């Protein structure tokens, strides 16, 4: 429980901090301290709020709903040695639908302002999620098929003991999940979190009209979403059977490593053109299908 709270409440800000630090270093600057996001978000909670007179109650509840869905999604995932707090059979279905619920409200909040920039962002976010959802389900479905388990906890443990193909499958799964992190977290090469042109934004443009505590909730939610997805990668990567403290350490290390890679990617890559983003996401889907073929042709299912 404490471990989960630490990973869900403290790590997200550090995660963003590390990404920003890596980007600064790559750009030849020293950059803000790693804990800067704490201050940024904390300050937002002390600020007032400007609310558009066009908006309705949806604009005000959306950030809270969004954060709640992501916290719950996080509680469905095991953290290192600690089993998921709320895990059950079929929990990965709920996981995806929770993220969808959060997205639903974010999209509506964007439409609520009557601002065409925000509508554009919402439209893009909705379109890309059409490609993300099947990729996630095909990937997780395949892993569930291979491991003969239906919960996150079960899948990750069973995969480690699978067969000689495990290593290949895990490696491919990591690549696919990493692509999903980039898309869901709205990072390069899908979306540029630092862009200054509204026309090229996806996620940032949807929250243009939010301010104060609501903006704080949104920022924490998107940071938390990256950590939650990062935890999936860590769980897949780290072999089971290690002592608890080592697994925990390795989980933290894996998250740190992911943050560094994202930072390096963002420093070295340009954003893809919008029309090419679906192709990028389809890579993840194809990897899912590839894993499925491997699993079926290697031994026709679990023995």
């Amino acid at each position, binding site marked *: 429980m404490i471990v989960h709270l630490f990973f869900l409440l403290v790590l997200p800000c550090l995660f963003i901090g590390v990404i920003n630090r890596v980007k600064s270093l790559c750009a030849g600057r020293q950059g803000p301290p790693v804990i800067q996001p704490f201050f940024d978000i904390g300050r937002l*909670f*002390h*600020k*007032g*709020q*400007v*609310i*558009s*007179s*066009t*908006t*309705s109650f*949806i604009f005000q509840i959306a950030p809270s*709903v969004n954060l709640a*869905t992501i916290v*719950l999604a996080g509680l469905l995932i095991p953290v290192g040695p600690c089993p998921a707090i*709320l895990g*059950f059979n*079929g929990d990965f*279905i*709920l996981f995806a*639908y*929770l993220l*969808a*619920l959060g997205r*639903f409200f974010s999209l*509506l909040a964007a*439409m609520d*302002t*009557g*601002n*065409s920039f*925000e*509508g*554009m962002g*919402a*439209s893009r976010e*909705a*379109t890309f*999620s*059409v490609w993300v*959802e*099947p*990729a996630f*389900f*095909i990937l997780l*479905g*395949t892993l*569930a*098929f291979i491991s003969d388990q*239906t919960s996150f906890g079960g899948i990750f443990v069973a995969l480690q003991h699978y067969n000689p193909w495990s290593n290949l499958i895990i490696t491919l799964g990591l690549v696919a999940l990493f692509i999903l992190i980039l898309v869901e977290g709205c990072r390069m090469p899908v979306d540029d979190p630092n862009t200054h042109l509204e026309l090229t934004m996806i996620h940032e443009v949807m929250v243009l*009209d939010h301010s*104060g*505590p*609501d903006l704080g*909730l949104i920022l924490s939610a998107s940071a938390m979403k990256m950590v939650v997805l990062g935890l999936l990668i860590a769980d897949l990567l780290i072999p089971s059977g290690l002592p608890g403290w080592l697994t925990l350490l390795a989980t933290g290390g894996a998250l740190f490593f992911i943050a560094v890679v994202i930072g390096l990617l963002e420093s070295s890559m340009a954003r893809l053109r919008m029309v090419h983003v679906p192709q990028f996401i389809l890579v993840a889907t194809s990897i899912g299908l590839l894993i499925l073929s491997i699993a*079926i042709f290697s031994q*026709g*299912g*679990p023995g």
Partner: protein
Amino acid sequence: MNLFLAGIGFILLGGIFSLFRPDSSKGKTLVFFTGMGTLCILRQSIPILLGAVTDRIVLFFHPPIGPIPLILDPLAAFFVTVITLVSFLGTIYSIGYLRPYAGQKGYSLSSHYFLLSLFMASMLLVPVVQNALAFLFIWELMSLFSFLLILFEQKKSEVLEAGLNYLIAMQIGVMFLTIGFISIALKSHSWNFASFAEVFKADRSWSNGIFLVFFVGFGIKAGFVPFHTWLPKAHPAAPSHISAMMSGVMIKTGIYGILRMITFFPDPSLAVGYGVLFIAVASGILGVIYAIAEHDLKKLLAYHSVENIGIIGMGIGLGLLGLSYHNPLLAIFGFAGGILHVWNHALFKGLLFFGAGAVFQKTHQRNMELLGGLGKRMPYTAFFFLIGSLAICGLPLFNGFISEFLIFISLLNGFRSHQPFLSAVSVLSMGAMATIGALALLCFTKAFGVVFLGKPRQPIAIGETSEGTPSMLLPMGILGFFCLGLGVLPQLIFSILRYPLAPLARSADFSVMADLEKTLSHLAFVLCLLAGLTVIIYGVRSLCLKKSLIQKHRTWDCGYPATTTRMQYTAASYAAPFLSLAEFLVNRTSHKIKPEELFPQKASYQSHHRDIFESYVFTPAGAAIRGFLGLFRGIQSGNIQQYILYGLIFLVGVLIWTIGVIP
């Protein structure tokens, strides 16, 4: 059974009495009687649904009809319960919805309410009649009454066209059913459903073929792709409560028919299961893609019916595969998800059509591009429509999620079956199901966002009371309550599904369900946690804001305030990024006038989407048939003497033939 028949009697009485009442109180009369009828029917159907003894009554007729058994078994009770509930709410809704038409020339409320009661009665009888001839008769009456109800605004040519399109589609469907029933009766020498099981058992390949004939016949009513083209025409043409009843419950009688045939079907072949699954997936994905391309609010909802029928069909397809593979888990969860979605879809689609009707009544506009900002003017309608949207997207806390979850669980069991092909198909279907969910989310953020949020895109002439009348809001509220209730208390579904499932999944062993019951109560706990957590976070946020300054201001708009509300993001542009990727499916055409010269005076852009089945299959087929029949147009001269001559020629022909045959 007596209570059930008394209930139908009440409904018919209501129709008759409403004939003699003034326009203003016709609706109330019918509501009173259907209310009594609904109570009687529910009193009978709910205990049977929950496991009381099946009730039956047999009406004796002479051959060739034979005895007509009316049987209210759990499967029938399952459908009867939801039909009576949604129809009753539809009649309440009609009081408010039809009020502006009262006393107006060209609209006949008398015939409308009378037909409404007949329509309800016929729908309620469909699931209980177990004699093929009587079934076909009731089935035809149901189609006929709904056709007449669509024609309420018969002055409009598009209404007439949509109605005829519907009638033709239904006749083609009934043709298949007739072929199916006659083929069975030829073997069993009885019209009675009870004799069907024997016939199905006798010949395996024949029974698979005949099942497909029934699937097509019932599938036309249900609206599976490619037989769906009547839906997006008929639903917008009908008054909204009729759309709600047709889309919410009438198309489900098609599903009922398919399920009833499955109960007689001992050993479905794999091809049938995979075929149904494939058609269902196609319906799900194509239905929602056309809905995204559609900017007429009611047409959009009609295409969503196709999508949801697809989801129901996926459950049925998985159930059939479970029967073929002798995998009881796959069968139970597949059928459970499918039939639970029948209820769920009836609840939220009724709600959404009621909401769309309220919008139409107040704005006289179905084109979303001209609406906007209605959330402020119609807060309750907006709130209920939001609940319906959340439910239809299958999002947690609402009922749609539970049935989709069950289908996912069935799929999970599908690929744990150690059958490589089934596993691959299950994983792909899982991807398809996820795509359908994400597309539905796109579609309903579009629909709700464009219609209810933002600002009105053109000045709306809204009457003195901008919100719908209480009689329109009440049914929406009740349906919304059920959507939420089934969503947060998923444990309830066990008692509801247990008995209707037994004849479908052929398994009295419900110990496997106990495992799922645990999962679902866990799920319920998580969902309550979700609600609680949201409230807590919102509370903390509000506390933070207590001391600070909250300002109301116009939307920032990046410093370029829009000069007109038409500059808000439109439904077409919202859908464009996706549709440009699915262009080959939606047959997009666009006309544009580009801005030219230094000071352009004129520029415009229009895009249209067409259903590929409509433009490449049914329109050419219709043209071909018309072309063929046109060959005979010459004999229709309108000259009465000529017609008498035809009669004479015919008689002489018959005379010669008789002389030739009988020596």
